[in-house]
């Protein structure tokens, strides 16, 4: 199936700082999915964070420094792929804004940004993956993370792949495209408002009565999982990559073991 090594696209995984810290399983799931799809995958070791927290806090100078480091580390690859719409959106859509008007960096950023993709859209839109091999017996609901949805147009791609998993039934929740209330620092700075928004979200999740909640961004997942755990819900929460890779034997996010009762 794989072409000769030289013909494989050289893909760098942008792990994202949240996956690195909280959920390495998502990183390994991403590696599996990309290698299965025929990529020559590498993980540049000097990566840290895309700089989004600084960017959204109004700290342009630090954002620039961090962005430059990311670009230098990753621009040599054919593609840069992140298991996050938010981080991929930062690299693809916001870096050009960070360097707008910067004569030295503008063109370089543009070339870099063209090669950046979120994981599921890279698999479907670029590699033309039609289905995955996984078998997971579960009713699943999918939350559209905002940046992926509105900055990168990711909506159909993860659903297409999830639907190809043997045993999965996709049960759409109401307002799956409405924010979960995470918003990075927002969830701590305006925690009461964030709580109100995530409470509406978990009501919608519960109403769909799935075994499992999936999304493509760990920030949103930590938020929704944190709320579901606090509410003693039985719904298990996972990153979409884990399920697509068939890696569902480990503990769900924020739990010792699944209590969802999926077969």
């Amino acid at each position, binding site marked *: 199936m794989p072409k000769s090594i030289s013909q494989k696209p050289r893909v760098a995984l942008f792990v994202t700082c949240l996956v690195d810290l909280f959920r*390495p399983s998502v990183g390994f799931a991403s590696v599996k999915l990309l290698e299965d799809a025929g990529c020559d995958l590498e993980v540049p070791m000097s990566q840290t964070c895309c700089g989004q927290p600084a960017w959204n806090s109004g700290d342009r100078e630090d954002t620039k420094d961090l962005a430059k480091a990311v670009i230098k580390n990753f621009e040599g690859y054919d593609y840069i792929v992140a298991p996050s719409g938010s981080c991929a959106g930062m690299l693809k859509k916001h870096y050009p804004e960070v360097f707008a008007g910067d004569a030295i960096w503008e063109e370089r950023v543009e070339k870099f940004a063209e090669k950046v993709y979120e994981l599921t859209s890279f698999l479907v839109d670029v590699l033309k993956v039609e289905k995955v091999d996984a078998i997971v017996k579960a009713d699943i609901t999918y939350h559209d993370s905002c940046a992926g949805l509105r900055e990168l147009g990711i909506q159909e791609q993860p659903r297409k792949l999830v639907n190809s998993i043997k045993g999965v039934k996709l049960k759409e929740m109401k307002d799956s495209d409405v924010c979960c209330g995470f918003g990075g620092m927002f969830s701590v700075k305006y925690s009461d408002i964030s709580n109100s928004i995530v409470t509406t979200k978990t009501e919608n999740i519960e109403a769909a009565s799935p075994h499992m909640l999936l999304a493509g961004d760990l920030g949103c997942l930590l938020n929704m999982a944190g709320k579901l755990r606090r509410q003693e819900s039985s719904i298990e929460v996972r990153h979409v990559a884990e399920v697509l890779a068939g890696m569902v034997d480990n503990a769900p996010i924020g739990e010792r073991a699944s209590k969802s009762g999926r077969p």
Partner: protein
Amino acid sequence: MVEITSPAFKANARSAMADEQLQKAMGHVRHNFIDKRATAAAGLDEFEDLRDSAVAIKNHVLEYLDLYLEKYEEKVIESGGHVHWAATAADARGQILDICRKAGAKTVTKGKSMISEEIALNDSLAANGIEPVETDLGEYIIQLRGEHPSHIIAPAVHVTMDQVREDFLKHHTHLPPDRPLDEPEQLLREARAILREKFLSADVGVTGANFLVAESGTSVIVTNEGNGDLTQTLPRIHIVIASIEKIVPTLEDMSQIVRVLARSATGQDMSVYTTLSTGPRREGDPDGPDEYHVVLLDNGRSSMIGTEFQDMLRCIRCGACMNHCPVYHAIGGHAYGWVYPGPMGAVLSPSLIGVDKAGHLPNASTFCGRCESVCPMHIPLPKMMRHWREREFEKHLSPATQRGSIRGWAWVAKRPLLYRTIASLSARFLWLLGGFNRRIKSLPLASGWTRHRDMPAPEGSTFMSQWREHQASLKGDL
């Protein structure tokens, strides 16, 4: 002056979320407007093209705003009207007061106008012995309640029917107290009858404007109730109060934008009344005002031109951004603490009252981007909120702890080896805190988070360290 409570945004938001009546009322907002807009937009094949066309028109106007304003003024005067230029809110209040005094006005009826809120016209009229009467049903209700609008097109959206009934019973004391007031329709009929008298007896009528057409010196209001038309038709004097960016070059340009306005706002294809007014009563006219005045308000807008906030001057005040905003849904409009709520307010208010006062507003956003996606004028609202955050960061207006933690974190993130070490230690530490159940119930440095939800515990070691081991083991296997 409308009291500015934006600095107390967090406390405002908390009390709003604890307010049962408000939360009940907001329940209607969360879907109604959204579903209707979606249907209206889908019902017109050219909708997206019209959005682009509308954007192009406003961008063109902003490039030649001075010249279009001159042209507009010339045409208003030609049609027998008067133009008053107001640099500040106080100037506008003074000019309107002058006109009312000269006319010996006792009662002023008012069509719905956010500019009138911005300049706090009612307080100024009342302080000078002139009774302002709001005639839009929603505005009338909140005037009785001594409140301000919580939404730019649905001013009383935060009020429940039960509250309206209580207000009417309290204020309409000339009516029998046991009259039936259990249906919205009965409440509306009562307000209609009371306001009908006011329309017929007012000396001056004040309306806003959705557009000012330069070609013909025409002011345009877009309404549903008909109150704006009665306000401007029946009294002897009609005063239009409008901000300078309302200019469009021609009637055709107006038609372009009208096509996206109601669809984005209420989800109607067209509002019931789009009324174009040009000058005062003419020879042979049997009705209409004897005098027609336009007060053109700047109040900080000209200073937005040429800055990163210029795009905000494209705003047509449809309210789609707040209708789709999860933060607005949670807290309603009053929590924002000044005239303009929601995403458009989060960008505009700092421009008009200062980012030192309105600093919370551009920060209280998840950047979900839903506002921008429905804005008929494609205003990049999140991007402009971020620009405000940059201004705050530059001016050291953001809280010192927050600033310090961002800078400190960035310092570390620029040093990969140090970052690796700290990340590994954090992963280990948080893993320990997660205990048997793999979740953290309380975390002092993130108490905002753990007050409401658990913090899922990490898996124990970072991806990068696991990957390194994994690679090493692969090499070992070879």
